[in-house]
């Protein structure tokens, strides 16, 4: 009697492993933990993605890595050993994505990260042959900020960022470009995402009297330094990073964030882009699809990174199918080659031109400067 469920289980297992015509996509997102505000819209996005590409059924296997590096590695190991996926998408954040590179290279499975750091696609590392990503590099966003500051005749800058990889990454990129352009950083402070007060840091920045302040934080925690600066009467220019590009930031920061400048992916202000911009159509399609399901004004740039990853696959899979069958080692290699060969693919965040030395493929069209005006994002 007891054998029955076992037999049924075996049959089910075989049924799964023989259904190799399907393309399996392993997705690991940080839907809980500190990066949840980025991971949740990404997870939501996969529910809206096409389930067939080039006539092949696509299975998304979505796991949560709780913003934790160990879990992310565990997830990708499960994808490549148990689920035998053809491609991995994830993770949401840089530390997780960096840790996953080894497994992707070892299993010879292409991986598309949704995290920001340029180190993820540093092609001088041979393992990165298998790794691609969809979000803009910090360096692209930093240069946009520096240009905007110079245009506004800013000479001295105060910097306050997260005391983690995000803040440090920004400081490194930003200080390099700022130095090259003769912009002086007069104060550099750190704070933690969960801090209840940043008075000390803010007082130190104000004592240095910078022309502008750059807050390098992500999501609603980036509102605290700006609110404290306003409360203490700082009257210079305020800059934020693209990490704050969601509706909750404006909700929490309120009137204190009026006039704040930030760089962002074009999808944030899709409706304001000129019709001649090819990104507008793709970005609007994504926005409309997302808001139809999750409500008006809910789109964030983070979810669009997930949509962009699927868009890359939608362009690469038909090419890979010409040489191999899904579920095989040859297919994974063909898919990798196909992604690396993508040219002029229009994503919601920009136009992609991949090459063996550029696994991101974005140019200047992938970012715009945005100003917060009466509680909304305004294209500059």
């Amino acid at each position, binding site marked *: 009697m007891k054998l029955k469920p076992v037999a049924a289980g075996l049959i089910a297992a075989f049924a799964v492993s023989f259904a190799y015509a399907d393309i399996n996509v392993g997705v690991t997102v940080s839907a809980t933990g500190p990066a949840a505000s980025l991971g949740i819209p990404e997870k939501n996005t996969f529910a809206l993605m096409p389930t067939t590409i080039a006539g092949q059924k696509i299975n998304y296997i979505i796991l949560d890595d709780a913003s934790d590096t160990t879990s992310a590695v565990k997830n990708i190991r499960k994808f490549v050993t148990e689920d035998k996926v053809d491609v991995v998408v994830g993770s949401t954040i840089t530390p997780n994505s960096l840790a996953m590179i080894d497994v992707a290279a070892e299993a010879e499975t292409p991986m598309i990260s949704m995290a920001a750091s340029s180190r993820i696609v540093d092609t001088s590392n041979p393992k990165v042959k298998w790794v691609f990503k969809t979000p803009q590099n910090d360096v692209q966003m930093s240069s946009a900020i520096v240009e905007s500051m110079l245009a506004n005749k800013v000479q001295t800058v105060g910097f306050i960022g997260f005391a983690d990889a995000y803040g440090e990454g920004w400081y490194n990129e930003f200080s390099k470009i700022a130095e090259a352009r003769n912009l002086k950083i007069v104060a550099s402070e750190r704070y933690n995402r969960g801090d209840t007060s940043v008075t*000390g840091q803010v007082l130190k920045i104000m004592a240095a009297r910078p022309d502008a302040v750059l807050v390098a934080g992500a*999501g609603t925690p980036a509102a605290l330094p700006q609110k404290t600066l306003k409360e203490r009467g700082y009257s210079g220019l305020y800059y934020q990073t693209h990490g704050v590009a969601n509706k909750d930031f404006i909700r*929490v920061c309120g009137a204190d964030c009026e006039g704040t400048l930030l760089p962002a992916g074009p999808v944030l202000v899709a409706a304001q882009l000129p019709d001649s911009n090819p990104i507008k159509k793709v970005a609007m399609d994504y926005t409309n699809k997302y808001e139809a399901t999750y409500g008006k004004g809910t789109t964030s740039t983070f979810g669009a990174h997930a949509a962009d990853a699927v868009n890359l696959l939608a362009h690469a899979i038909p090419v890979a199918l010409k040489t191999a069958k899904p579920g095989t080692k040859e297919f994974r290699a063909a898919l990798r080659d196909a992604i690396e060969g993508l040219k002029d693919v229009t994503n919601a965040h920009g136009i992609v031109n991949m090459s063996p030395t550029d696994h991101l493929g974005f140019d200047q069209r992938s970012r715009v400067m945005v100003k917060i005006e009466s509680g909304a994002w305004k294209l500059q």
Partner: protein
Amino acid sequence: MDLQIALLLGQDGIVNGAIYALLALALVLVFAVTRIIFIPQGEFVAFGALTLASFQVGRVPGTLWLLVGLGVLVAVVEIGIATRNGTLRRLVSALTWNVAYPAVAAIIILLGEPGTWPLVVQVAAALALVVPLGPMVYRLVYQPLQSASVLVLLIVSVAVHLALVGLGLLFFGAEGSRTTPFSDARLDVGGVVVTGQALWVVGASAVLIVVLYVFFERSLWGKALRATAINRTGARLMGISTTQAGKLSFALAAAIGAASGILIAPITTVYYDTGFMIGLKGFVGAIVGGLASYPVAAGGAVLVGLLESYSSFWASAFKEVIVFTVIIPVLVWRSLTTRHVEEEE
């Protein structure tokens, strides 16, 4: 650093320290009465603040469903016990508190429009939702483990903490919230601007501490709690129910936590997991007091607030390192100066 900056930092440190002091008192109270190191203390801070924030944007807070859910669980447990022992009278009281009360709360909040209520009523409603969670958690999780060792209770506390943080993410989402301040007043004291909300925090903390003092010194319940803290067996022989004492201490801890959350929500952004860090800093204060002395714990907590404030000015990247490293010299000093008496367990 000039005098003005020093004063501003001092003011900021005292405001944060006042909140840490409240949490330190709650931690000492719970530990003294029940021997539980109450790690989930911080979650009540987040629940209090975010419940109020939910009311203000006109949403039904998830804590309401937590209250209803825990109430039903407690009722099931109590009915099971009552049918075995035939103690009906206790059952009636348990059902009133765990089924009828959450049901009434749910009806009022679902039918009323919390978004339109005045601030005072919203605060009262937030407290009314969050405070009963304390005794319910005690009844479900800790009461069956009353005589377990401190280590088991600590492990269970970690589990409760993780469960409550997960529920917090489910109820309130990953992004933070702020509430409207109690007062927009700004006072200029010797060139230093003091906000009305900062005065509220310090004032309310002071009042709460005095109320707690009077409660423990003058009221019968407070004396019963103290007796339980000093000697559990002795207190039981005198007819004090340690179960009731445990529930009462959890209700007080939840009330202190929720009140702290409501006080800080207008001056900082509160997230579903903010409470843990605040609770930990309260815990550092409580450790300074050896988890036994209320005044030393409160003093230690204010010290933590000041240390945090000044170190965020001098070395912001190492702020947490500095604050938590304080524990080491304090523990060394305490282990050298106090004679440790092995407690019977």
